[in-house]
């Protein structure tokens, strides 16, 4: 079977506007969550988020581009530039046709929708800019990455709420493994931190007003983030032949559906995805050293996830480290798995396990080693990254050191 490796990584998120800055923040256990700076924030009851501060779109894109690029597309393009730059790939000729882009997002161009609904409903305008549809569509980011880098193979967008980018990366992985493509640009992007985006989440009563404290007994819910993570997945032989630097191997992937409840997570569904990813990678559960948790900081997710890990890994659950970096960058919804994959790469390559910050009180229902508050040095050779979405759709990737 063809093997798949990662040869490029890029990101922009609340912790940093590139991979080195993000990994440094994760190593230092820095918190990127703070007061939201958005229009009408005074009408929100949730006023914190993992917002990218000091982001100036005009520093990166010209006026014509901005008229077509929603904030989520901008994030995707910036992350793709870093990832493809690192990979050193030039998508020309035959390689272009054998390369594609699969991106995850949940809200797509939500800020564009928010702005334009405001214009027509609140301000009573009867006219909107001609590019609103191509700007807000969920596949805009994937399409612009494809156009910018001449990626002419299989390209589309996956929307499975909080699992979107893990599902997207899983598709990219399977396409290379099965021979459908030789290289794939993949990950996820999200920019939901606008008035309507936060207001909708507020309604569900699961958002924290003060901090994201995954696995801590006094946790008060999730905190939204924004940004993108993008990677270059490449067939192992292809990467090896051109002497590319290999960041990690994508070894396995599994996805399951709870088929039970639209918001409450299921231990069985999550455990089946974890077990499936380990098996698909050809690993034993004893090989797993670290799990990047879904770890949203909600009452329901964290205890269900810990129970699922315990079920799936058996005695090994007491030996692994599991952390939630959402405590630092917030929950990027459809982009979250992509940014969290960076913590997995850091664990495998640098031997540094990103911490779960904001941890204050042990919860007997989350009795695993959650790497509280400080990063840890540890040698791990195989890791998992979990994503469990509203709607009961679960996606877990397994990575291995190369």
């Amino acid at each position, binding site marked *: 079977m063809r093997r798949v490796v990662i040869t490029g990584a890029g990101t922009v998120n609340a912790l940093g506007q590139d991979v080195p800055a993000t990994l440094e923040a994760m190593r230092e256990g820095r918190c990127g969550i703070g007061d939201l700076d958005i229009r009408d924030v005074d009408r929100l*009851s949730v006023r914190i988020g993992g917002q990218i501060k000091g982001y100036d779109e005009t520093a990166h894109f010209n006026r014509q581009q901005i008229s077509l690029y929603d904030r989520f597309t901008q994030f995707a393009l910036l992350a793709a530039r870093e990832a493809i730059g690192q990979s050193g790939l030039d998508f020309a000729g035959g390689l272009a046709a054998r390369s594609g882009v699969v991106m995850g997002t949940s809200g797509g161009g939500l800020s564009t929708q928010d702005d334009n609904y405001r214009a027509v409903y609140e301000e009573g305008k009867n006219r909107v800019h001609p590019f609103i549809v191509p700007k807000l569509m969920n596949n805009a980011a994937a399409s612009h990455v494809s156009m910018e880098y001449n990626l002419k193979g299989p390209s589309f967008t996956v929307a499975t709420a909080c699992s979107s980018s893990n599902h997207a990366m899983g598709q990219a992985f399977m396409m290379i493994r099965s021979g459908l493509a030789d290289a794939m640009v993949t990950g996820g992007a999200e920019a939901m931190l606008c008035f309507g985006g936060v207001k909708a989440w507020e*309604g569900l*009563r699961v958002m924290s007003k003060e901090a994201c404290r995954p696995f801590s007994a006094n946790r*008060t*819910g999730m905190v939204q983030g924004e940004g993108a993570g993008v990677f270059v997945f490449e067939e192992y032989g292809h990467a090896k032949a051109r002497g590319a630097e290999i960041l990690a191997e994508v070894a396995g992937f599994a996805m399951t559906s709870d088929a039970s409840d639209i918001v*409450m997570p299921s231990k069985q569904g999550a455990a089946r995805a974890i077990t499936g990813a380990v098996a698909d990678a050809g690993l034993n559960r004893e090989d797993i050293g670290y799990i990047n948790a879904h770890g949203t900081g*909600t009452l329901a997710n964290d205890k269900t996830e810990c129970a699922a890990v315990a079920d799936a890994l058996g005695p090994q659950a007491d030996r692994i480290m599991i952390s939630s970096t959402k405590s630092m960058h917030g929950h990027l919804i459809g982009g979250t798995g992509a940014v969290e994959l960076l913590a997995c790469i850091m664990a495998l390559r640098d031997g540094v396990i990103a911490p779960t910050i904001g941890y204050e009180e042990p919860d007997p229902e989350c009795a695993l080693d959650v790497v509280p508050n400080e990063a840890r040095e540890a040698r791990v050779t195989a890791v998992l990254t979990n994503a469990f979405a509203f709607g009961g759709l679960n996606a877990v990737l397994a990575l291995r050191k190369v």
Partner: protein
Amino acid sequence: MTGTIRDRVIGIIAEQAVLDVSDVRGDQSLADLGIDSLGLVESIFAIEEEFDIQVPFNANAPDSGDFDISSVDAIAAAVERLVKDQHG
């Protein structure tokens, strides 16, 4: 909807539980009435809309807020207090 605050709260809870108002007793919990966590969040939304109040409730810390949801009576009393505080 007219009637006392308590009657209106019971009306909202009964509707959520798909029960007749006369089948809802003050000492019952929402779980007794078959209302799950989503139903609870919906009921709180309906209460906020009905009385134009803000209810302090976070589903992640259901017992730690100022809003006692342990029984129908407790909810009615909490709503009476919130209406007084916010519209008094």
